[in-house]
C-alpha cells in the first residue's frame, strides 16, 4: 500500500526534489522558452520580442509548410504500414518459436537497435547507391536475363542502367523502415506472446484456415500491441531528422529538417519554434488517438 507523503516528509523531499528540480529546470523551462518564442518576432540578429503574435503559426499553415506537414505524415504513415506488414509475420514467427530460438531471434532483432542510428543510416547508403549491392545484384540478373534471351534467339536487353535508389522519397521510406522495424516487432511480439493460444487452436480445430485465424482471431486479440507498435513507430518516424537529411533528395525534406533550418541557417527562431510546437501537437494527437483506440479495444475485450 502506498504511503501518504505526510507520513515521511523528509524521505519524500529527499527522493522528490532532485529529479523534479532537474525535470523542471532542464526540460520544462527549455520547452517553455521555445513555446514563448513561438509567439515572438525577430527584433534583431539575436533578439526576439515576445509580442504574442500568431503570425508564426499562420505562416506554418501556408501551402509551402503545410504541404511538408502533410508529406511528413504520409511518409511516416507509409513507414509504419510497411513496418507493420513486415513486422507482424516476423513477430508471429518469433512468438511461436522454441524458447532457445526465440531468445536468439529477439536478440538479433534488437541488436541493430543498440547500434548507432547514424551508422545504420550510413550503412544503408553503401547498399542503395548506384554502385551499391542492390544495383550490383540487379545488374547481375539483368545481364543473365539478357544472355538467356540471346541464347533463345531474342533481342538482348541492352545496357544496364543503375537504378537511382538514393536521394529520393523512396530512399527515405526504406531508411525509416530499416531504422524503425525493431520498434514495431518488439511490442507486436510482446502482445502475441501473451495471447491465449487455445483460442487459435479452437479456431483451427473448427475448420478456419491459418490466414482466416490470423485475421479474425490473432489480429483482434493483438490489437493493443498493434496499436502501441504503430504509435511507437509513427512518432519517431514523423519527427525523423537524420534519415531524410542523409538519404533524401532536395524534395524529401520532412518537418524536422525544416525546423533545423530555421534554427541554424535561416536563423528564424520564432518560426522554428512554432513549427516545433506544431510537430509536438501532432505527436500528442497521435498519442491521444492511440489511447482512445486502446480503451475501445479494452472495452470490446471485456464485453
Amino acid at each position, binding site marked *: 500500500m*502506498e504511503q501518504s507523503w505526510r507520513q515521511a516528509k523528509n524521505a519524500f523531499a529527499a527522493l522528490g526534489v532532485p529529479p523534479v528540480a532537474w525535470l523542471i529546470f532542464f526540460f520544462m523551462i*527549455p520547452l517553455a522558452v521555445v513555446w514563448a518564442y513561438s509567439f515572438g518576432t525577430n527584433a534583431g540578429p539575436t533578439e526576439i520580442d515576445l509580442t504574442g503574435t500568431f503570425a508564426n503559426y499562420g505562416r506554418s499553415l501556408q501551402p509551402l509548410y503545410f504541404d511538408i506537414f502533410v508529406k511528413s505524415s504520409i511518409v511516416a504513415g507509409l513507414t509504419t504500414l510497411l513496418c507493420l506488414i513486415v513486422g507482424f509475420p516476423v513477430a508471429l514467427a518469433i*512468438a511461436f518459436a522454441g524458447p532457445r530460438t526465440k531468445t536468439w531471434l529477439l536478440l*538479433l532483432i534488437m541488436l541493430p537497435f*543498440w547500434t548507432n542510428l547514424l551508422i545504420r543510416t550510413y*550503412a544503408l547508403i*553503401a547498399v542503395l547507391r548506384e554502385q551499391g*549491392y542492390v544495383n550490383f545484384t540487379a545488374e547481375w540478373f539483368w545481364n543473365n536475363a539478357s544472355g538467356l534471351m540471346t541464347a533463345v534467339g531474342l533481342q538482348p536487353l541492352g545496357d544496364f542502367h543503375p537504378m537511382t535508389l538514393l536521394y529520393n522519397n523512396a530512399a527515405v521510406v526504406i531508411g525509416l523502415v530499416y531504422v524503425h522495424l525493431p520498434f514495431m516487432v518488439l511490442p507486436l511480439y510482446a502482445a502475441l506472446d501473451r495471447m491465449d493460444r487455445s483460442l487459435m*487452436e479452437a479456431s483451427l480445430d473448427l475448420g478456419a484456415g491459418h490466414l482466416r485465424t490470423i485475421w479474425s482471431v490473432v489480429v483482434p486479440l493483438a490489437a493493443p500491441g498493434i496499436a502501441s507498435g504503430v504509435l511507437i513507430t509513427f512518432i519517431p518516424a514523423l519527427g525523423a531528422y537524420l534519415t531524410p537529411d542523409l538519404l533524401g533528395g532536395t524534395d524529401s525534406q520532412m518537418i524536422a529538417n525544416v525546423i533545423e533550418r530555421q534554427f541554424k541557417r535561416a536563423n528564424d*527562431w520564432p518560426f522554428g519554434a512554432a513549427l516545433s510546437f506544431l510537430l509536438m501537437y501532432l505527436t500528442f494527437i497521435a498519442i491521444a488517438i492511440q489511447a482512445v483506440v486502446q480503451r475501445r479495444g479494452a472495452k470490446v475485450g471485456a464485453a
Partner: protein
Amino acid sequence: MSIAEPVATIERAPPKREKPGPLEYLRRWPLQAIVGATLIFLYAPLITLMAFSFNTSRRNIVWEGFTLDWYGRAMNDDSLVQAFVNSLTIALICTIVSVILGAMSAVLLWRFRFPGKTALEGSLALPIVVPEICMGVAMLVFFARIFPWPTGMPWPLNLGAITIAHISFSFPFVTTVVRARLASFNRELEEAAKDLGADEWRTFWDVLVPHMMPGLVSGALLAFTLSLDDFVITFFTAGPDTITFPVKVYSMLRFSVTPEVNAASTILIVVTVLFTALGLQLQSQAEKQKPKP
C-alpha cells in the same frame, strides 16, 4: 486427433520430416522466408560496412585486399579520437546521474501518494515521447539564451551542456524501467526490516536497492546506449570544441566518405555490442542473486 495430441507434446524433438504443428509458425516456409529476408535486410548493410573497413581500396565498392590501415588512420585522427573519448565520457556521466535520478523518481512514485502524482507521471513521460528535434531546439535555445554554459572550461567540464541534455532525455527511461521492477517488490519485506530495527536508510540500502538491482542495471544500459547513440539533440548543443562521435562522423560523411568512417563506425558498433553483452550478463546475474523466499 484428441488422443494423438498428448503424445505429440511428450515427444521432445520431433523428427525433421514431420509436418509442422499447427502453431509452429517458424517451421513454415513462408514465415521462414520473411524472417530470413528481414534479418538480411537488417544485417547486410551493417556487415558490408564492417567488411569494407578492412578493404585496401579507397572506394567502398570492390574488395581488393585486407588491411588495417583505416584503423590506423582513425586512431591517428586526433579529432576523431577526441570525439570518441568525449562520447564515452558523456555517456558515463549521463548513465551515473540518470540512474540516480531515475531510481529516486521511481521510488518516489512507487512509495508515496501525493497531490500532483499524475502530473509528475505525465511530465516524466514527456521526454520519452517528445520528438528529438523539438528537444534539440529546446536545448539549443536554453543553453544559448537562458543558461549559457561558460565557454573555455577545461575538459570534461566543457561537455556540461551536452551531458545535461543527455541526462534530461535518459533518466525518464530509467524511471520507467526501475518502476516496473519495483512493482514486483513485496512491501512486507520492508516492514519486516523495520520491525527488526533497521532505520529508513538501512532498509533502503539493504532491502530495496538489492531488489531494484536488475532494473538499475538495465536502466543504466539503456541510458548509456541512448547517450552514445544520440545525434540530433547533441547536434544542437555541441559547440566547435565539444564534438561527440556521432556529430564527428556526420561531418565526415558530409565531407567525404572514406573507409576511415567505416573503421570508426566498426569500433563504435563493437564497443556498443560489448557493453550491451556485459550489461545483459550483469542483469541476468542480478536476477539470479535475488534472495530466495
